[in-house]
């Protein structure tokens, strides 16, 4: 598991108030209880803060798209973290 994924689990657990929540690549909003539009924004804000990254307008909502899941989201964060570090 990457560092990003390990930290991301903590963010998810905080936002969704569930200390037992585990992430998997194919996971989408439908798999998590309470993942509504309010919680979606709460998640995005928490991720931006935790990883010191900024999503583009289109990226903020992208996670809700059909072909997107926790796996693609993790890679998006990783690419932002590494380009910020470079």
């Amino acid at each position: 598991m990457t560092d990003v994924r390990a930290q991301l689990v903590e963010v998810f657990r905080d936002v969704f108030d569930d200390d037992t929540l585990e992430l998997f690549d194919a996971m989408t909003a439908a798999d998590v209880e309470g993942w509504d539009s309010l919680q979606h924004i709460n998640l995005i804000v928490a991720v931006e803060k935790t990883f010191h990254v900024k999503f583009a307008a289109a990226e903020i909502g992208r996670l809700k798209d059909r072909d997107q899941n926790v796996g693609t989201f993790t890679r998006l964060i990783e690419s932002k973290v590494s380009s910020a570090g470079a």
Partner: protein
Amino acid sequence: MIETQVSNERITAYFQADAGERNRLFRGFVSELKALVQAGDHQTAHRWAGQAVSPVQDYSSVQRLGRIVRQAAAALPGEPFRLAVLGGPTTIQFVELLEAFLATVGPVEIFECEYGLFRQEILVPGSGLDRFEPQAVFLATSMRDIARLPRPGQAAADVAADLDAEATEWLGLWSAVRDRWGATVIQNLFEEPPWGSLGHYATRVPSAPEHFIRRLNARLLETAPPEVLFHDLPAVAANVGAADWFDPRYYLEAKMPCGPEALVRYAHSVGAVVRALRGKSRRVLVLDLDNTVWGGVIGDVGIQGLVLGQGSAEGEAFIAFQQWAKDLKDRGIVLAVCSKNDDATAREPFDRREDMVLRLDDIACFVANWQNKADNLRTIAAQLELGLDAFVFVDDNPAERAIVRRFLPEVAVPDLPADPAGYVAAVAQHRYFEAASWTREDAERAAYYAQNARRNELRLQAGDLQGFLASLNMEARLAPVSEVNLQRVTQLVNKSNQFNLTTRRRTQTEIAALAEARDWATLTVSLRDTLGDNGLISVIFVKREDGIASIDTWLMSCRVLQRGVEAFVLNELARQAQDAGCHELVGTYIPTARNALVRDHFANLGFLPAGADGDTTFWRLPIDGYTPHDTFIQAVAVHD
């Protein structure tokens, strides 16, 4: 049992900590609050979450506290205050933050409307808002909700007509809110677009959108009826900084009115207005002296060694902080001093340094000794007869802050930066002293407390109470509720906790209606004595029905306790009731956490017990054969 103690310790540790340490302890603190909710102790979780929330926390932290407040609120006792938040932009994120900031106000139920549908909710009978019957309506609007925003170049006459029409429409929405539910309106002023096409020259072009918005704001301020409250959104945005306010990403994706971190400041600021409306604003500023009001320790460096006044940046920073406190005092906030010093040493700079802005007569209560500050704050509260939840305590010493936070969590204790240049902003950003009304009497309130302290002194000298009361030459002015005193009456009705028999809160509109009603009688009492004018200090509402005069509301300012005002008021109530053909006065006492002071009020005045309903007790007093009480108060005629 052990678990409970551990949990309390983690919560206490969080409160005791200063800013940096608090961030580190936050996760543990939140888990304890969640554990409390799961254990069913909703009230405690709700209280701690409310006391922990602060505008300097980040979005995620406030949001998590807001969620705990929401989970805990449903189980709270008491009738919730019904607040509608009508956007404009989407409000779901805003409301979760707002709930956190309103937790210490008491239970609050919030109604939200669908995105952008606020006009329909207000105007269409049977709407969700109509069924909700709000007590206050916050119009969380933005410039995008202006229906007639012009484009540069539009004909001047059209722009002027549009301005009239636009203002009229907003006034219409407000009167609908007032007429349909008697609710208080809180209206956002409109913010300006950050980058207009005309730049600075827009100031000379009435058809430029930002020009129009300024004029619309000015028009709304000029024409709004007095009971409408404004939330100065452009000022909040300016405070955050325009560049950090609007975040197009969150607007485009979620229709959020501003970026997430700015949203915390926005929700906090609206929360401060609602707190004021509910009479929960703070009223006392307690100041430490050494390194808070002046630089240096007076006991060490002596009066000439203090860093204060012109000539050094640091000395001027302390002057600026003193000036800020002085302005608050002139506005009616009570100032007190709580310092670890010998009394004479602590007072010396006030008497002998010309460059002190604060003078001894600005300070209603001056406590300098070597006892711990939590105990001293309790003493100050007792002397001022004000609750500790009305207190703000400012001290540069983190250890003193920690003690007060630990033992008196209801006192607000802001973090202070090391640099005194940052003191004003560090305290002011909390918006502790927001007002929902402001009258000349408020400005003089600080003076009342100083006078009261002198009265207490006199009472000790006079020895016997009767002689003391006689020496005061008290004069009371009696008047029904009218336009002249409506603001002050509304304020007392929503603020008085201790001498308040029923603690029934009402909006200004409700009180105005009651003053007009034929079967209701309203009475206000203003009191003057040789030491000064106390202003309007007592409010009584009586409902008359079938020969019985029921005392719905009886409240009094605690600063005139033990002066015989209660007996004087009863004489008047009996006289008025008799004139109205009533044969009996009925009193009700509804106990709260704050009004034990008046538990025996009716018994003391000679009322007979007339049953109880739960904790509420009822009392009756036959009017036939009523013998007026002796008092030392003279009634004087009111000149209209």
